[in-house]
């Protein structure tokens, strides 16, 4: 029984990790309709930012979070302005392929710069855990979980309560109309992508405290983000939390109670079935293309 509870806790925390690194993916898709295959590379860059800042500057990843946010924000802005803007509004396949190209370039340049070595670093507090009545709660994951709720909440508020948010939402609904209303659509897209990249960088920094990182880690993260987004409903931001949690809990319970080999299979079968039964995501609030 305690194993079940422990696995459940672990699954919920893992769900927070998934949600945090998928939120940016959802945001970008929701506003621009761009499926960003290079998403995992943003996670990777965020992770390496935290790694180097810790290694060279002895800056704790928690403190360097704003720095990785800023770095990735700028990187995302430039990427959007230079490249991705050109495929917004084109058939979705164009964005898959363009961002796949970007994925290859970033991953391989990183490989040249940082070699294929697997890296990890020991932040004194991050590797340890809280114990409570025999249950273990790893600290770094707890922080990540809280951060996930915070980031998704903040993005949600930003979209619903601020002027910039309204501009983003109206652009997402109908960009032609938005332009007629005097909104600078390009600027809105660049801002959105930069925001998405920034929070993904934050996620990457957190991930680096408990996972092993390397330049070619990205694709796996993209795949999970895609699954999370679909489960929650493509483009529906709070869905990222739900999708992440569901994925994390199912995976964790399967790994602990059945077999880890089945956990991956079961996760994907559930995803497959959810899609067949509720194609707009679990809450039915996602959009169909």
């Amino acid at each position, binding site marked *: 029984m305690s194993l079940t509870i422990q696995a459940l806790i672990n699954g919920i925390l893992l769900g927070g990790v998934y949600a945090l690194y998928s939120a940016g993916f959802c945001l970008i898709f929701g506003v621009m309709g761009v499926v960003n295959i290079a998403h995992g590379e943003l996670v990777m860059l965020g992770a390496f930012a935290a790694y180097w800042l810790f290694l060279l500057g002895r800056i704790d990843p928690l403190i360097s979070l704003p720095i990785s946010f800023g770095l990735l924000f700028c990187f995302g802005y430039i990427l959007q302005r230079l490249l991705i803007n050109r495929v917004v509004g*084109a058939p979705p396949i164009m964005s898959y392929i*363009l961002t796949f*190209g970007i994925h290859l*370039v970033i991953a391989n340049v990183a490989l040249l710069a940082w070699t294929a070595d697997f890296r990890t670093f020991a932040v004194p507090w991050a590797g340890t855990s809280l114990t409570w009545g025999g249950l273990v709660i790893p600290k770094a994951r707890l922080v990540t979980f809280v951060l996930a709720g915070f980031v998704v909440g903040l993005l949600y508020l930003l979209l619903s309560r601020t002027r910039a948010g309204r501009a983003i939402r109206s652009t997402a609904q109908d960009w032609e109309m938005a332009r007629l209303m005097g909104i600078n659509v390009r600027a809105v897209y660049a801002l959105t992508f930069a925001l998405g990249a920034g929070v993904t960088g934050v996620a990457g920094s957190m991930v680096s405290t408990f996972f092993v990182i390397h330049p070619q880690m990205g*694709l796996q993260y993209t795949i999970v983000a*895609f699954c999370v987004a679909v489960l929650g409903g493509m483009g529906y931001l709070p869905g990222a939390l739900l999708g992440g949690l569901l994925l994390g809990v199912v995976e964790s319970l399967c790994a602990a109670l059945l077999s880890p*080999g089945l956990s991956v299979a079961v996760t*994907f079968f559930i995803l*497959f079935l959810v899609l*067949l039964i509720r194609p707009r995501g679990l809450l039915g609030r996602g959009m169909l293309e």
Partner: protein
Amino acid sequence: MNLRIVIGLTSCAALIALPLFFGGYAIRLATLTIMWVGLATCWNLLSGYARYIDFGSVVYFGIGSYIAFLVMARLEQSFWVALILAAVASGLIALAIGIPTLRLKGAYFAIATFAFAEALKQVALEWDNLTGMSLLGGSHGATFPINTSSAFFYYVFLALTAGILTITILTERSAFGYALKAIAQDEDAAEGVGVNTARAKAQAYAISASFLGMYGATESYWLTYITPSSVFDVHITIQMVIMTLLGGMGTVLGPAVGAAFLYLVSEMLWARFLYVYMAMVGLIIIGVILFMPQGIVGSLRGGFPKPHKEA
């Protein structure tokens, strides 16, 4: 028209005669290029013409590989029996999976097919552990009888690729082809005018799956050793998608040109720039999307009507 036939026949003759003049690496490169031309063409049939982006095509490649292993190594039947059974099994599974899945659209279809492929990869890995049989070999992999004739595999792949290309050419001019293109333009409208869209999609999906199954069977026999991770590898799907898009989706020659171009270019870059070639391939992909969004063949032709509504 005549010129086209002459060019066509000459290149056919050249392709058939190739193994007489070349061997070793050259013939392996030619064989692999032909294989990728075929794989991309398979992917194009549904995803290119009907714009149903399939991110799990590799699943039929993997199914075909394991069917071939069961038939050849476990039942000790000939390769030809394996090839036929791989095609039949892949096609039937594709029908069973495709009929519900093809109701999904856009990214949802893409991720559903992907999820199915990943799930099946894990099932193949776990099968022996779960059932207590020693059937598929799990991560220990599966070994095939050895056939060292390069020419044999060259001709099998050539025949398969000729087959799927012929089907594509016939499709282009048939009611089936129009149905697929109508789905890409506007599926609801197509249904409105009486096109049986469900049937057309399922047919295209099953045909390409049968061929993918045969490609999987042949490549596995050629490599002599497979594991679930190698034949259900998501990179195989990615490669098919990229090649088709580079060449031009929904055209007969696009996937072939894209596949040959990408395969040979990455081979050349790789030989010269060991450490940077993947980044260069990425740059080429970005360049093509930005400057020739219709793909190589599409751009040369001056483009075809965009299938999507918004700009």
